[in-house]
């Protein structure tokens, strides 16, 4: 895992999520895609389990900073990222529709879990409820596979794995 590139990606995604993302908001609910969620799914299905755990928690931390209150997103991103990484060892998620469905489902579960955790911790919950969560997940699922191509090029995880394998064999 190229961690310096990962750090750059997290910083850029957090700044965009906090500022620029509102320009592409749609519907009356002002639904925006969640770049950090897309990143979490990408690293969970492209990296090994240990890297996926670290990246998921770090992306969750960044998502918490981009919203209000600390904790809910770290836990939900970390939990779902780890689960997704383990699941990916059993069921390979390679095709574009599968990636989109994965982002959609992960977004809904992560959003609901973060909402629930924020509620029990007495923090301000994300307004909009399930409608906003579903909208964000759907928008992220539409945009996700496109960003995956960009991230594949940026992170070059696949190429590195191929290089490693060619050295071994």
């Amino acid at each position, binding site marked *: 895992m190229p961690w310096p590139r990962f750090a750059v990606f997290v910083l850029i995604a957090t*700044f*965009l999520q*906090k*500022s*620029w993302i*509102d*320009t592409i*908001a749609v519907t*009356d*609910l*002002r*639904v*925006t895609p969640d770049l950090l969620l897309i990143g979490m799914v990408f690293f969970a299905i492209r990296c090994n*389990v*240990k890297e996926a*755990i*670290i990246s998921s*928690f770090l992306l*969750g931390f960044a998502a*918490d*900073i981009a919203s*209000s*209150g*600390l*904790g*809910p997103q*770290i*836990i939900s991103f*970390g*939990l779902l990222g*780890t689960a997704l990484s383990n699941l990916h060892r059993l069921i390979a998620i390679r095709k574009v529709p599968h990636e989109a469905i994965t982002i959609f489902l992960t977004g809904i579960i992560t959003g609901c879990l973060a909402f629930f*955790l924020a509620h029990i*911790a*007495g*923090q*301000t919950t*994300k*307004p*909009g409820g399930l409608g*906003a969560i579903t909208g964000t997940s759907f928008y992220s699922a539409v945009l996700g596979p496109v960003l995956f191509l960009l991230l594949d090029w940026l992170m070059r995880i696949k190429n590195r794995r191929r290089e490693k394998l060619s050295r071994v064999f």
Partner: protein
Amino acid sequence: MAGKRIRISSKMLFAWFMLGGFILLFSPLGITGKFQFAIGRLFYWPLKAGRQMPLAAKTELPLKSNDEDINRKESQYQNHITNLEEELRQKNLAIQQLTGLRTRLRGLEGAGFLPAEIIVSSVSGLRTEIMINRGKEDGLSKDMFVLGDNSIIGIITEVSPRTAKVRLFTDASSTIQVNIPDIEINMLMQGAGSNSAKIKMVPVKYKIKTGQQVLIRKKPGYLDSSMIVGQVQQCKRDNKNPALWDITVKPSCDASKLANVAVIIMNPVANVGLKQPQTANLPNGK
């Protein structure tokens, strides 16, 4: 020994991160809030640059921009006129009552305006709040009202020594008391996101027209005079209860285009950095 690499299993790694997450989740909100304020200050410039990107993208041809400037100025003066008219109306009421009590000639006499710059702004979606570069050290406290383009835009919800969070009245979790001139009932305005707010529970026997001014009710100690907050954009019967109005309020000020705001400090102790309420000095958002 020094070069020995520490190996940690993925299960342990997960457990440690989860523990960290739960510690952060159940930490007192004051501590986590301070941390977020610190992040906001640390990344002040990139966040500001990021915030200005959408504003720059919205900029159109210079001619149209000039038109927008003129419209905005006109809107500011219109808001100011409405505030003065409301003050005059209240003054007339006070005279009519002949109570003999000493009333203030101007609602905001003795109040100070503390100009502040917006550091972080999220004004779209259901959660609409801004972070400003003034805090406890500048005399700010919770529940103070914030002005933008001569109209109330929100109240301070969190204060750190050097920064403060302002929840706009369009935020879904915001509820404030308002009134509409000539309708003598208390109304509650609930934020609806998407740069709008809703007033419900108003019986249909009251005649409400589109374009009528909506004023925030005075709150002694924080706001000694009603001030404009928006206009009635739409008024229709409530779908669930046809005996009540469902009123949509459009803010008088477009918070997404603001760069500066002013905090109203009633009866300020120190005058450091405060501006007296004169028309020429009122914040114009530029």
